[in-house]
C-alpha cells in the first residue's frame, strides 16, 4: 500500500502505514485474515488518528499526542517476571509471543496466532465502530495472544496472572477469554515493560461470562515512561453473572484504556473500580461504557485518580440504559486528587437513559487534599509530607480493600505504595 497523494498523514500515521507494509509479509494468516487486516488498515489510513473533534477522543487528541511509532523488533529480549501474587498460575506473552504451558484443571490456553493462521480469528478482526482506533491498529498488526477458556463450574484457589511483558518495539496482542457457566476465578491481566526504550503496545481483551460466572479481573498496567499503551477491554455478561473489574494504571507515557461492558443477562452485575496513579509528563485516558440492555441489572463504578507533576488524566464514563432495561440500578463516581498546579484532569461522566423505571446517578469531584484532615494528622505530630502520603494512600487504598482475598489486597496495596513512594 502506498501513501496516496493528497492525503496528508502525520509522522505517526505514516509510520503506522509504513510499519504495516514492512510487516505484512510475516504477519500470521492470509486469506480472510489478511483481508480483514487490510480493511482495518485502510480504514485507519483514511480516517487518520482521531482528534479532539471526535467526541470519543475529546480529551485525547491522538493525532497530536502520538508523535512516533517504534519499529517492530525481532530481537526483543524481555523475560517473564514473578507474578504479583505469589503462587499464581502464570500465562505469559513475552515480547508479543504467547507461551502456553501445563495448566491446572479447568483452564486451557491456546495461542491466538494459530487462529490467525487458520483464518478462524478473521471474523473478530473488526472495529467496534467508526471511532475504534485501537481496534483498527490492533487488528491490523496483531501477531499473537492467548485464547483462554475456563471450564463450566471451575474454581481456583490461586489467581491466574496473564502477563504481557516486553522491553521495546511493538507488541500487538489479543486475549479472547471465555468463562463457562458458574465458573469462579480471579485473573490479573498485567502489562509491563522491562526496558526503557519506547514501545507501542496495543491489546484487546474480549471476554464472555456465561450465566452465573463470578469473575474478579484486575488490569494492572505499569509500562515504561516512554511507552504508548492502547488497550481495550470488552466483556459481555450472561444472566446472573458477576464481573468485578479493577483497572490500575501506574505507568506509560501515553495511555488509553477503553472498557466496554455489555451487562446483557438479567440479574448480571458489574463492579468497576479504577485507580489511576499519574505522574511525570504522562497522559492517561480511561474511557468506559456500560450498556444495560435487559431489565434488572446493576452496575457501580468508582474511579479514583491521583494526579501529580505535569500529568494529564482523563476519565470518560458512559452509562447507557436501553428502553427495555427497566429496573436498572447504575451508579458512577469519579474522584480526583489534583496535587499539582501543572497537572490536569478532565472528566466526562455521561448518562444516556432510555428507560424510565431506573435509578441512575453519577458524581464527580476534583479536589486537593482535605486541609482539615491534614491538620488533624499534623496536630498529632505526623510530619506534613508523611501526612500527605497517608491521605493519598488512603484515598486509593480504600478501593482495593473491598476485595476479600487478603493476599491480593496486600499485593495491590504494595503496588500502590511503591508507586507513591517513587513519585511523591
Amino acid at each position, binding site marked *: 500500500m502506498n501513501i496516496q497523494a493528497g492525503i496528508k498523514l502525520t509522522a505517526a500515521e505514516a509510520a503506522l502505514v509504513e510499519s504495516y507494509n514492512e510487516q505484512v509479509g510475516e504477519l500470521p494468516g492470509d486469506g480472510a485474515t489478511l483481508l480483514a487486516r487490510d480493511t482495518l488498515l485502510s480504514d485507519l489510513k483514511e480516517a487518520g488518528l482521531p482528534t479532539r473533534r471526535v467526541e470519543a477522543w475529546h480529551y485525547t487528541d491522538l493525532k497530536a499526542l502520538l508523535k512516533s511509532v517504534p519499529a517492530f523488533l525481532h530481537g526483543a529480549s524481555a523475560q517473564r517476571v514473578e507474578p504479583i501474587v505469589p503462587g499464581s498460575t502464570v500465562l505469559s506473552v513475552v515480547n508479543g509471543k504467547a507461551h502456553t504451558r501445563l495448566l491446572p484443571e479447568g483452564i486451557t490456553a491456546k495461542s491466538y496466532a494459530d487462529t490467525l493462521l487458520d483464518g478462524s480469528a478473521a471474523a473478530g478482526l473488526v472495529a467496534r465502530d467508526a471511532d475504534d482506533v485501537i481496534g483498527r491498529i490492533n487488528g491490523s498488526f496483531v501477531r499473537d495472544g492467548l485464547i483462554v477458556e475456563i471450564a463450566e463450574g471451575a474454581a481456583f484457589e490461586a489467581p491466574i496472572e496473564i502477563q504481557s511483558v516486553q522491553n521495546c518495539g511493538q507488541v500487538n496482542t489479543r486475549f479472547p477469554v471465555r468463562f463457562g457457566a458458574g465458573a469462579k476465578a480471579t485473573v490479573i491481566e498485567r502489562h509491563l515493560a522491562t526496558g526503557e526504550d519506547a514501545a507501542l503496545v496495543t491489546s484487546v481483551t474480549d471476554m464472555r461470562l456465561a450465566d452465573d460466572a463470578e469473575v474478579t479481573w484486575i488490569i494492572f498496567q505499569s509500562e515504561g515512561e516512554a511507552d504508548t499503551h492502547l488497550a481495550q477491554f470488552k466483556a459481555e455478561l450472561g444472566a446472573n453473572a458477576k464481573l468485578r473489574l479493577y483497572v490500575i494504571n501506574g505507568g506509560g507515557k501515553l495511555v488509553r484504556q477503553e472498557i466496554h461492558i455489555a451487562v446483557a443477562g438479567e440479574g448480571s452485575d458489574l463492579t468497576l473500580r479504577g485507580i489511576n496513579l499519574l505522574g511525570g509528563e504522562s497522559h492517561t485516558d480511561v474511557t468506559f461504557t456500560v450498556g444495560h440492555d435487559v431489565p434488572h441489572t446493576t452496575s457501580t463504578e468508582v474511579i479514583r485518580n491521583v494526579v501529580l507533576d505535569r500529568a494529564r488524566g482523563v476519565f470518560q464514563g458512559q452509562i447507557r440504559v436501553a428502553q427495555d432495561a427497566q429496573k436498572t440500578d447504575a451508579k458512577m463516581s469519579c474522584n480526583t486528587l489534583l496535587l499539582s*498546579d501543572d497537572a490536569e484532569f478532565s472528566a466526562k461522566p*455521561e*448518562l444516556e437513559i432510555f*428507560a424510565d423505571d431506573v435509578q441512575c446517578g453519577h458524581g*464527580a*469531584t476534583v479536589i*486537593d487534599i482535605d486541609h482539615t484532615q491534614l491538620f488533624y494528622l499534623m496536630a498529632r505530630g505526623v510530619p506534613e509530607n508523611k501526612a500527605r502520603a497517608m491521605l493519598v494512600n488512603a484515598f486509593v487504598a480504600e478501593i482495593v480493600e473491598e476485595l476479600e482475598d487478603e493476599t491480593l489486597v496486600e499485593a495491590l496495596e504494595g503496588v500502590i505504595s511503591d508507586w507513591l513512594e517513587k513519585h511523591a
Partner: protein
Amino acid sequence: MPAVQETIDQVRQIDVDQYKYGFETTIEMEKAPKGLSEEIIRFISAKKSEPEWMLEWRLDAYRRWLTLEEPTWARVDYPKIDFNDLYYYAAPKNQSGPMSIDDVDPEILKTYEKLGIPLREQEILAGVQTSKIAVDAVFDSVSVVTTFKEELKKAGVIFMSISEAIREYPELVKKYLGSVVPTTDNFYATLNSAVFTDGSFVFVPKGVRCPMELSTYFRINEKNTGQFERTLIIAEEGAYVSYLEGCTAPQRDENQLHAAVVELVAMDDAEIKYSTVQNWYPGDKEGKGGIYNFVTKRGDCRGKNSKISWTQVETGSAITWKYPSCVLRGDGSRGEFYSIAVSNGHQQIDSGTKMIHLGKNTSSRIISKGIAAGVSQNTYRGQVSTHRKAENARNFTQCDSLLIGDRCGAHTVPYIEAKNSSAQFEHEATTSKISEDQLFYCLQRGIPEEAAIALIVNGFVKEVIQELPMEFAVEAQKLISISLEGSVG
C-alpha cells in the same frame, strides 16, 4: 400505571390544543427576497439605516460563515436546513422600527394583547400592587414598541431595540458588540452576526440599580422566516439589572429557524440576572413543524466580584440547542445557571451551560432539571473548566432528570476540566422516574393522578422556579403543567 380514558384522550390532544399561542396575525408584511446573499445583508443593513462599519461587520461575518460547517455534535436529529429557502427579513408594512404606541398597527397590538403582554404603560393604580415591567416587543424582524423608555432614561438606563441603539449609541454598541460572542464563535452565532435583525440593547450605568424589570418579547409570525435576534446587555460598575425574555410563534407545519445571540457584560461588582421563558411552538404530536432554536448566550463577568445569573425555563421548540454560559474573568466573580427543560411529544433538547473559570476565587453553581415525556429526547450538556491560573475556583453542579413514560430519553453529558490543584468541583447527576411511593401517597389522599404528578414535578423544579422573578414564576409553573399535561400513561 394503567391509563384511564381521560388520560388517553388528553394524550391524543397533546400539543395540538395545548399550545395556546399558536394563532397567526394577518397583517401585511414587507419581506426581503428569499435566500441569503451579500445583497440581502446590504438590504437588511439599509432597512435599519445602519452605519457603514455595521454593514462591514455583517459582511465579514457572512464571508466567514460561508466557510463554516454546521455542528453535529449535539444529540439532536433534524433534516438538513436549506439556508437559502428562508426569508431573512420580514417586518410589518410601514413599520421599520419602534414607534409611538398610537401609531402601531392595531393588529399587532391585538396580538400582544392576546399573548398577555402589556404594551401600554399602565399607571400603577392607587392601592393596587403591580410592579412595572418595561417591554421591548419584537415582531419578526423588527422591534415594534419599547415601553417605559422615558422613565428608564431618567434613571440613566438605556433600553431600546438594538437597531435603534446602533443608530443612537454607535460608540457603545461598537465597543461591546461581539466582544463576548465574537463573529467567529460558531456556525449559528456567525450566521446571526451576518443577518441579525432586531433584539434589545440595555445599558445600565455605573452604580445604577435598574428601577424596573426589563423584558423583551419575541414573536415569530411570518411563514418561512428565520428570526435572528441579537441582545446586548451591559452593566457598568456596581449596576444591577434583571431582564426577562419570552417567546412564542404560530403553529405551522413547516419548521422555522430561530438563531439568536445574547451577550452580557458585567463590570466590577455588577450583577445581571437574565431569565428566559422559552415557549416557541414545539410542533404537533407527530413531530411536524415547530421552531428550531439554535441559540448562543454568553455572559462575561469582566469585572471583579461581578455576577451573572441565567435562569431558563425551556418548554417550547422542536429542537433546542442552547448553552447559556459564563466567562468568569474577574477575580471573585460568580456565575449561576438554573434551568428547567421540559420536553414532550417529539421535542429534542440539547441544552446546558459552560462555566469557564479564569479569575481567582471564582465560583459557579449549576442546577439543571430535565423532564422528558412522550418520545422526546432531553440532554443536559455542560462544561466546567478552570484555567491554570484560576486559583480557588469552586463549582457545584447538580443535574437531575425525570422520565415520564418509557419512550423518552434523558441524557447527561458533563465535561469537567480541572487545571489547577486548588479547584474544587463537585458534580452530581441523577435520573429516575416519579417515585411510586410519592405518587401513592398523594393518590391515597384523594389527589387525582394528573394533579399529583404536577405536584411532584413542581417539587422537583422548585429550586429553579424560585430563581425566577415573581411574575414569571407563576407563568412558568403553569407552562410546565401545560407541557406535561396528558403525558401520564
